[in-house]
């Protein structure tokens, strides 16, 4: 199907009827929400978009909005490609997403409290003990400890997709150090700069209020007896893939960005070295993984963390955000129990759908998986960033045999899900100088504080730039789009 007549930049846009297309409905009409946008874009020529695209790229690079890709040999600094066609989520649709991701974050927090205290959900047989006891992310040191404000996953990144049935499904919950929020803000800035006239026609919520809400949340989990907490962001350093984000968040909150060597612990209090002498630190937004935060307690050879930090935390003198040990609950095997977890703690039905999942640790399901590798996505339970994923229908027979062998070697390490068809969205493709449909997902950002919650009205729409590719992670060559959440009554 061609939309050539209306818009030259859509001349090679072929709608696949098997997929949910976010801007064209099944009759190839532009959906209501996108009408104004589509018309406005029709006023621009392919050349205009080419120029705008180049400008946006240059602007990202000049501002240093980059990330790094970890490969086998070299480390590359790349910009996160920004797409010129924004994603629009209307008020009604958003309301469900917002309630749904908040519900999940609250349930996960209750789950973590339980796992590190009475373990009732296990004793009642709802979540199997094996799942927890085989998890390398369960931290014994957190057993019986009450984190400040009772919060573990202060910051959650929930990944959603829109399936061919037009409904949202949660793909995973990220509650260790979810990243990407800085790109949400940068994308908004870039879009407004490139196409302000277009943005102006819609009433979309701002996304720049994330930093102030983050800061308020950090302040809400201050240690007892502290009036105005001193908050900092700790980064592993400039070689970390998300360093830009760490520096952005610190700057936007107006707090210090530190590395491990900038802090020290004395008598179980944490101090920052400054030219005016030591300054006490009360809340640390740490973008360092659990195993690296304190060489006295975890990996002894890590120089990224602060020796003695864990004891300061356990004595209640400093708050770590997110709490150590949250990784046990964002394990992909735990994900499959999310509907039960939500019902157990909140006595509510899950608002958002879970993708059906097969556990290779269960013999029956393992058998099904081995017989149906070609129709499934196989994921390792403990890897982030899209590493180690096999998509069944992309594999050669030899590769399928290899995947089977890998699964059989350690079934507990793998889950499988039906191949979900992510919705598609018009995306500017440099080679064809046109908009073409590409798969997208959505990462939302939720904050839990001791007195208030916040869901960023917007999110990171990630797009797989390679045709047909389903993996949208930036580390796998994905790009992103500005995401507009519309206010009611437009």
């Amino acid at each position, binding site marked *: 199907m061609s939309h050539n007549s209306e818009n030259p930049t859509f001349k090679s846009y072929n709608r696949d009827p098997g997929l949910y297309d976010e801007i064209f409905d099944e009759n190839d009409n532009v959906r209501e929400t996108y009408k104004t946008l589509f018309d406005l874009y029709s006023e621009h020529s392919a050349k205009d978009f080419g120029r705008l695209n180049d400008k946006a790229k240059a602007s990202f690079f000049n501002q240093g909005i980059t990330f790094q890709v970890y490969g086998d040999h070299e480390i590359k600094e790349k910009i996160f490609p920004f797409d010129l066609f924004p994603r629009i989520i209307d008020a009604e649709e958003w309301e469900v997403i917002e309630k749904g991701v908040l519900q999940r974050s609250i349930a996960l927090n209750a789950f973590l409290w339980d796992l590190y205290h009475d*373990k009732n959900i*296990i*004793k009642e*047989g709802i979540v199997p*003990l094996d799942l*927890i*006891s085989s998890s390398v992310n369960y931290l*014994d*040191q957190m*057993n019986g400890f009450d984190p400040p404000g009772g919060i573990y996953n202060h910051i959650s990144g929930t990944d959603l997709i829109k399936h061919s049935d037009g409904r949202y499904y949660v793909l995973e919950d990220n509650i260790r150090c979810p990243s990407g929020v800085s790109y949400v803000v940068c994308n908004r800035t870039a879009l407004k700069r490139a196409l302000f006239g277009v943005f102006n026609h819609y009433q979309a919520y701002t996304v720049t209020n994330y930093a102030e809400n983050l800061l308020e949340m950090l302040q809400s989990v201050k240690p007892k007896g502290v009036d105005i907490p001193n908050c900092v962001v700790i980064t592993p350093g400039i070689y970390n893939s998300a360093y830009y984000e760490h520096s952005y968040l610190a700057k936007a909150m107006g707090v210090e960005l530190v590395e491990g060597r900038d802090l020290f612990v*004395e*008598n*179980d209090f944490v101090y920052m070295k400054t030219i005016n002498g030591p300054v006490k630190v009360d809340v640390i937004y740490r973008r360092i993984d659990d195993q690296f935060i304190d*060489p*006295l*307690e975890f990996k*002894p050879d890590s120089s990224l963390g602060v*020796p*003695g930090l*864990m*004891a300061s935390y*356990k*004595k209640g003198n400093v708050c770590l955000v997110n709490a150590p040990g949250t990784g046990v609950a964002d394990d992909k095997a735990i994900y499959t129990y999310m509907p039960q977890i939500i019902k157990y703690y909140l006595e509510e039905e899950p608002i958002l759908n879970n993708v059906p999942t097969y556990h290779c640790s269960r013999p029956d399901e393992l058998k099904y998986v081995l017989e149906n590798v070609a129709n499934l996505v196989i994921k390792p339970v403990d890897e982030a960033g899209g590493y180690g994923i096999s998509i069944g229908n992309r594999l050669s027979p030899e590769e399928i045999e290899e995947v089977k062998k890998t699964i059989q070697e350690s079934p507990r390490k793998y889950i499988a899900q039906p191949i979900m068809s992510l919705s598609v969205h018009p995306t500017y493709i440099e080679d064809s100088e046109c908009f073409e449909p590409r798969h997208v997902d959505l990462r939302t950002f939720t904050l839990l504080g001791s007195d208030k919650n916040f869901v960023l009205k917007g999110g990171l729409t990630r797009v797989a730039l390679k045709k047909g590719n389903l993996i949208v992670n930036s580390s796998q060559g994905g790009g992103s789009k500005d995401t507009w959440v519309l206010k009611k009554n437009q």
Partner: protein
Amino acid sequence: MNLEYNITYAAKNTYENEASGALWQFLIIPETNETQELISDDFSNSLQIPVEHSINGYNFKTYRIRPGQSFEIIEFTANFKVVKKIKNIFEQVSQLYSKEEYNQLRSIDFRAENDVFLRFTDLTSLPGKVDFKFDENISLFDNLQNLNAWIKKEFTFKTNVTDIDTDLSHILEIKQGVCQDFTHLFIAIAKKYGIPSRYVSGYLHQGNGYFGDSQMHAWVECCLPESGWIGFDPTNNLIAAENHIKVAHGKDYNDCPPIKGIVFSSGKNETEYNVKVLAQQQQ
């Protein structure tokens, strides 16, 4: 009746090249629990660096030292006074066989409660079969007593044949080792039978000819559904009682080494330490 102990811990660290800074954490302070009470403690070092009191990840008390100056040699000395109750352990323990005890051991409540000490760690994983079997017709306690005796009988105490990273397959092969090794082996076998087990680091009262009295000692604590945590010392085939002064516990040695340090120095370094435990009866 009580026993009063005077414990001395002395260590000396030597660095080939001058170290420009460091942080040490000592996990050597006897804990206060139902059977023992720490009366006094004192810790000093040759560089007169102020001592900080902290905790480790499992809430056991520690000392910390952070020298600001450069050094090549540093010596540490600690003195503790501990009162230990003499208690008949057999009053606490259910020695009678009961099927109920086995059922409780397998219950999800008990396993969930003690999950941390049922997990196998690198140091407490059995490589394959061992020649020791539990007998389900006798009590759990008797099985553990048998395990204690089996280790003592089959293995020979010998220093310098193993180190802290030696895994159990090697111990089982050479049938030699020190208290850490026998403790890890005991823990691995007990866990295999579903008994929550933890590594205990502490001091052994010397002078009775037991092994492990001039260094920090290691033994096992097992959690039995009807009796609670009970200490077994496989190095000496003893039930841990008034001669065993506990400092800390963890999943294995890695959770409770007496000294942990981060030292900014190049080249070799050496640590020597020794322990003295003197007892005196109290009325």
